[in-house]
């Protein structure tokens, strides 16, 4: 293959979820099978790169100013939900179960991966909490060591002792039985049980 083709494959391979074969397939698709799509893709990438920013309020995707969620006055301002990444926010939105606001951290604490508090979206957090005065903070971070450490750090350094802080539940998937659940999931499900009415 040509050096330019190889350079393109190398760039695509750096994207999450793509190995060498997938990157090569995409490059061939764009250059040989559907070359007509290439200008549209380049255009979309350029427009997105020049207009999409992080929402200055919550860290979600936005095109200048607050994102569509932060600008929505119909949302419940008494609740603020912390998530690790934008796809987590989108997943909760798709569920339709939550109508409050979000705060996207864009990571979780992990000294192994060289992620410290300065790498998380925390710069304007104290001022935002002061403005919002939420009645409840929901921590929807993963329940691994790093997710739990991030929750602990946030509570100790940013949350007023008077705010109610909750952690989302971890356990069995809906429609699933206990039979095929692994031991760690079952332990979480038993620990997170609640009164049955």
């Amino acid at each position, binding site marked *: 293959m040509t050096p330019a083709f190889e350079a393109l494959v190398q760039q695509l391979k750096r994207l999450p979820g793509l190995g060498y074969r997938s990157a090569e397939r995409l490059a061939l698709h764009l250059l040989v099978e559907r070359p007509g799509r290439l200008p549209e893709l380049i255009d979309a990438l350029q427009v997105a790169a020049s207009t999409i920013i992080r929402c200055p309020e919550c860290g979600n995707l936005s095109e200048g100013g607050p994102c569509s969620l932060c600008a929505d006055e119909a949302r419940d301002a008494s609740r603020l939900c912390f998530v690790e990444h934008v796809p987590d926010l989108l997943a909760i939105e798709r569920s339709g179960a939550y109508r409050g606001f979000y705060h996207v951290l864009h990571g979780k604490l992990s*000294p*192994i991966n060289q992620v410290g508090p300065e790498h998380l979206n925390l710069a304007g957090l104290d001022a935002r909490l002061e403005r919002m005065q939420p009645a409840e903070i929901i921590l929807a971070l993963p329940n691994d060591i*790093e997710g739990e*450490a991030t929750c602990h750090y946030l509570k100790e350094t940013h949350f007023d002792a008077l705010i109610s802080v909750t952690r989302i539940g971890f356990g069995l998937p809906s429609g699933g039985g206990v039979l095929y659940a692994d*031991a760690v999931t079952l332990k979480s499900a038993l620990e997170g049980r609640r009164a049955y009415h």
Partner: protein
Amino acid sequence: MKLQAIALENFRNIALQEVRPKGCGVFFLGPNGQGKTNLLEALAYASILRSFRGGGPDALIRHGEKEAALRLELDHEVLGRTEVGIRIRPGGRSATCDGEPVRRLGEMLGRFPTVVLASGDILLVRGGPALRRRFLDLVLSSADHGYLAALQRYHRCLQERNAWLKGDRPRPGDAVAAAFEAQLIPAALAVTRKRKAGLVRLEASLGPLHLRFSPGVGPVGLRFLPDVAAETEEAYRELLEKSFERDRILRATRRGPHRDDFAFEIDGRPADEIASEGQQRGLVVALRFAELACLREATGIIPLILADDVLGELDPRRRALFWENLPGEAQVLATGTALPEGGLPAGHRLFEVREGRFEPANG
């Protein structure tokens, strides 16, 4: 648990073999380097998903091949007739149980227990603490998944804390360190508590077994030597604070269960100093039988006994005691370069092993 059949493909020097034990025991006879230990290693691999000889998956794949595969048919106390499949590729492995993929490999621990007796076992008495921790971790993880979870949490927290200590100017009382220590401390206390209780259970089984292998020598004890004596979260946190300056200089957490140890004692004195060679060898065989008793009690499953040429190292009296004291219902798969003096125990099958091939020799 009884092994009905094991099939091996491209595992070490074994190209393709199926072995059907049919009975309460099997003896694999052959010169050294023919593949006897490889078969026991494969059985233990299906149990703990790692090699009892150490080393990664790459060493297990036959030279020039891309992957190794194992298939076991077992009569299991809980699951009934069960088929276990293992695939080993460079850098990874996967398992199936009755065709269903096993999502968390940790779930396999304790489900198909084996007890391995190998010539290196004597190092448990006289070798370094890492070997004894590995032994204890494997037994307790197989007997109690809560232990495995606590141990994994502890080690992950420890790695994060050590990475923090290696970072830019760690300070005492830092909120990031505190966030990881808040999880490290309960995990460390759980690991220590479970190790202490586990050693008490092992010791209770070991005492009478050891007397059979070394009459008149004893009593035998397993003395836990925890690196941290703290029993409360506050006391542990204080210890971390006190050790901080040294941890910062060493750029690693010095104190904790990752430095625990335990000692074998006879009459309250260190067994590695006062016990003879034969007594030490008898002691580790008794320890393996105690391991079997603990696993059986915790899981309700009788482990397979995999005896890798250990009989050659025992004196004739202890060799006879090994066969006499085998738990009746347990299936034993043993290897050796010569047959036991008294012949094979009743019901045992004999396989001759040459160049990775296993041929039944007594019908």
